[in-house]
């Protein structure tokens, strides 16, 4: 970079996880004010897909369900540093959760619940220090084989219990009885033999840098085939055994696949299998169709919104991305496998980050809608005028009274939080905006009060583009029009709309027949296949008479192509989600809460807690009561979830890409190592964007970036 005495002005467009992370990195004290950062944000709040708001009675209203995972090292690291600067304890903001639950339908059509607890692991996510960790494919194979061996021991023990009960007493009464004992003994011995074989396999892989893969694969094939044959009859009648077996089967398929595909020595790591769909790849490597269709795998797909076009009949995710994600999630988490936030994502993540960034001097320009990124120059070495961004064009959605900075936060129960709607009092013509229902976050509401162009050299030096990939075709027309790589990226890195609703309940879910503690559940019935009991948030809201239960539901929203007549799209989609949610409660709630259904089979709408304002207007009855709850259709292009479809990773562009010499990009849609839609991917990307500008943080310090 050319030396410059004055601070370098960095314009960050988009205040989601990636954008605020870039701002956080560039304004570290170590930089001594070298970077002067301004964040340009659509509407009134930060957060992007992680934005949340406080509504009536301080209700937390989320974009969807956000649960942080124990392997989100970078996200936790940034947040912990942020909390330290605010002298707050980040552990008070999260609750460790150890259980994952999935569902599947039994032969009678009933939903069965399967819960698995994961033990606490050493350390806490985001711990800094210690030796650099560079997990290899081989490490993961060893982990998986060890897991399989443990599960196999469970199977042997379970099969043994089932078999031994009538035969442990005395001398066999008859030859048949003794024979049966022998057969069972043989079965158990076989299973034990397989376990022994797995132990051997584990040691072989651990110990040798070079081994005959073909033999190992043959061994695995034999072990699986024999075990499956032995267990087949029992799997049908023992659901628990069947589920354990399915996990074993899937895990062994991953081991077999990693060996067969030569991933241990492939410099591309798991990217080498990016062109395969995960389910296809597992089947290729010997997984049974029943395992691939199991609730376990469906649950993982559901958690990752991995349905192309939101179609539940088209589960698709890159095998490489999925495998990387599964392995990191199950074998590299720290503390707990999940961490639930004590608050909305806006409260726990974006409000503290906003406070710290403000303290550090970052400026925030709210109500700025990006319209175009103007580029000039040509790419290529030696070009006299290298390709660069010459201007950023914005619509200004609202002006702030007296030219003051917009103050975006409110306080609920002593906690700084983002409101669900803007503070119109701070806006010039605020009453008119409210009266005319300006929707500052809608892609289709293009009303503005002014336009503004930031010119390179005059208003900024370097730019970080941190909007969602769904918005890129609309706000980067120049880039997409002139650069084939950008065109291919927006064609292949696809997104999906999502939807969610939240229910505040007047009755505890345990009183409605829910038998388990509060958990997160996935793989449930479409179109809301994921739900979570969030009752721990109720004390953080400010109801005059607090509800007792709080449950979130979310999933993909099928893309029906109904985006014509732009202005009415949000309202139409919102009505669609309302209808889907009402129908879902009528049809599916009974599987979760048997006592939420009355004698006539109708959902008991009176279970829903209504805000005082609604009661004042005449407490709604029946289905109409649902209108007092919260629901959202995330159909804005920038709100859509980033998919990791097979074969799409190669089209991602890295924040480190230097095609444009004053531009970098950030978001979970970039080539950021993780390459799937999640907080961690966005944060890594934001850190990479900062590295592209400041050479800091070091790539080696971005945990998990260098990863198979």
């Amino acid at each position: 970079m050319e030396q410059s005495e004055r601070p370098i002005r960095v314009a960050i467009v988009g205040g989601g996880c990636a954008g605020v992370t870039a701002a956080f990195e560039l304004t570290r004290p170590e930089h001594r004010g070298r970077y002067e950062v301004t964040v340009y944000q659509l509407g009134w709040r930060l957060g992007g897909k992680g934005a949340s708001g406080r509504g009536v009675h301080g209700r937390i209203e989320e974009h969807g369900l956000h649960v942080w995972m124990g392997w989100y090292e970078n996200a936790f690291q940034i947040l912990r540093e942020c909390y330290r600067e605010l002298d707050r304890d980040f552990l008070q903001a999260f609750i460790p959760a150890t259980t994952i639950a999935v569902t599947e339908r039994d032969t009678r059509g009933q939903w069965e619940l399967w819960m698995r607890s994961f033990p606490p692991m050493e350390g806490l996510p985001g711990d800094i220090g210690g030796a650099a960790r560079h997990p290899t494919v081989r490490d993961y194979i060893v982990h998986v084989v060890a897991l399989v061996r443990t599960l196999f021991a469970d199977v042997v023990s379970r099969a043994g219990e089932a078999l031994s009960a009538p035969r442990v007493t005395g001398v066999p009464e008859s030859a048949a009885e003794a024979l049966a004992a022998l057969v069972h003994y043989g079965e158990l011995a076989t299973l034990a033999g397989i376990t022994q074989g797995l132990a051997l396999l584990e040691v072989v892989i651990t110990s040798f840098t070079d081994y005959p893969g073909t033999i190992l694969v043959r061994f695995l094939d034999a072990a699986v085939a024999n075990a499956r044959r032995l267990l087949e009859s029992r799997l049908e009648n023992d659901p628990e055994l069947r589920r354990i077996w399915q996990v074993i089967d899937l895990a062994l398929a991953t081991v077999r696949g990693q060996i067969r595909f030569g991933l241990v020595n492939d410099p591309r790591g798991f990217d080498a299998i990016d062109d395969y769909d995960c389910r296809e790849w597992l089947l290729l490597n010997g997984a049974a169709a029943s395992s691939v269709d199991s609730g376990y795998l469906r649950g993982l797909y559901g958690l990752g919104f991995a349905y192309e076009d939101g179609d539940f009949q088209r589960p698709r995710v890159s095998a490489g991305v999925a495998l990387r994600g599964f392995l990191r999630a199950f074998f590299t988490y720290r503390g707990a496998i999940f961490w639930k936030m004590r608050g909305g994502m806006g409260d726990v993540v974006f409000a503290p980050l906003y406070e710290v960034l403000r303290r550090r001097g970052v400026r925030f320009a709210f109500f700025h809608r990006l319209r175009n990124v103007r580029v000039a120059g040509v790419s290529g070495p030696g070009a006299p005028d290298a390709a660069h961004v010459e201007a950023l064009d914005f619509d200004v959605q609202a002006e702030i009274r007296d030219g003051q900075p917009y103050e975006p936060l409110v306080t609920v129960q002593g906690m700084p939080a983002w409101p669900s709607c803007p503070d119109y009092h701070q806006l010039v013509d605020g009453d008119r905006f409210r009266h005319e229902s300006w929707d500052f976050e809608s892609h289709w509401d293009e009303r503005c009060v002014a336009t503004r162009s930031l010119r390179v050299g005059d208003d900024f030096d370097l730019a970080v583009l941190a909007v969602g990939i769904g918005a890129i075709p609309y706000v980067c027309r120049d880039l997409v029009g002139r650069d084939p790589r950008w065109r291919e990226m927006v064609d292949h890195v696809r997104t999906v709309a999502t939807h969610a609703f939240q229910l505040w309940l007047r009755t505890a879910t345990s009183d409605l027949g829910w038998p388990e503690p509060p958990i997160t559940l996935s793989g449930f019935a479409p179109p809301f296949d994921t739900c979570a009991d969030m009752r721990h948030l109720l004390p953080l809201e400010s109801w005059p008479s607090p509800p007792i239960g709080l449950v979130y539901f979310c999933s993909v929203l099928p893309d029906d192509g109904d985006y014509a007549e732009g202005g009415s799209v949000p309202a139409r989609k919102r009505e669609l989600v309302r209808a889907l949610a009402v129908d879902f409660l009528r049809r599916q709630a009974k599987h979760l809460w048997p006592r939420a259904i009355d004698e006539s089979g109708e959902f008991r709408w009176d279970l829903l807690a209504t805000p005082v304002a609604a009661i004042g207007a005449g407490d709604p009855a029946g289905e109409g009561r649902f209108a007092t709850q919260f629901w959202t259709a995330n159909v804005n292009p920038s709100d859509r979830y980033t998919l990791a479809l097979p074969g799409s990773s190669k089209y991602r562009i890295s924040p480190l890409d230097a095609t444009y010499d004053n531009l970098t990009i950030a978001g979970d849609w970039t080539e950021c190592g993780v390459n799937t839609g999640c907080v961690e991917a966005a944060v890594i990307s934001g850190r990479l964007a900062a590295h592209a500008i400041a050479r800091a943080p070091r790539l080696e310090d971005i945990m998990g970036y260098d990863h198979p």
Partner: protein
Amino acid sequence: MSTNERIKRPSLDRTAPVRNWSTLLNAVPSGDAAPAGEAGTNSRGTSGLGDAIARSVALGYQVVEEYVRQGEHAARRMSEGAYRTESVTADAQDLAQRMGRYASELVGTWLELVQRTGAAATGPRHAEPAAPRTAPTPARAIGVAVAIRSSRPAEVAVELTPEAAGARLVVHALRACEAWKPRLDVEVEARAAAPDGAAVLSVRIPDDHPPGTYEGLIVDEATNRPVGAVRVTLAGAETRPT
């Protein structure tokens, strides 16, 4: 403005993640991702070392096959009605003997294997064979005793990681998801009489404590790292907060 005046991004040492440190260091050529055929994933697997591994793995494979064969054999005879108690005994003895033999052979081959590998891994071929390495040993069993005083049914689950072994443990107060529910304190004391000096987690549940699930972390006092978790579930009907 002149292009020379524009501030540009710095040049970077690299622009992509390192996906495989071993290949980066050893420069192993990449192959196509298509699955390797029967001809071998890696031709170097046919070395002497590879032969030893192959024998070892094949032996494990043989163990499995033998068990299966025995089971099938027994099933066949049963279906033919040809079994007598005496033959059951003979078959069982035979099976046990075979198992013992295979296990023994397996261990022998394995020792040969690790000795060769130890030599290969620790230096040139002429180096002294390394001491045989053993398979990862299971973590030492960690015992804790739980003393619970409660006038109603309570379920207690304790999970500990291997790091808890020998550590001085502290248990955070158990919390319910519902913040209004009071916490449950857990005291930890070392009891000399307990096996292996196991810690005793002592929980006293007041009679009026609200039902629900209470969880807390077990922490190593020295390092402040979580090494386990305690979960107490109290039965009873949920009540509305006051």
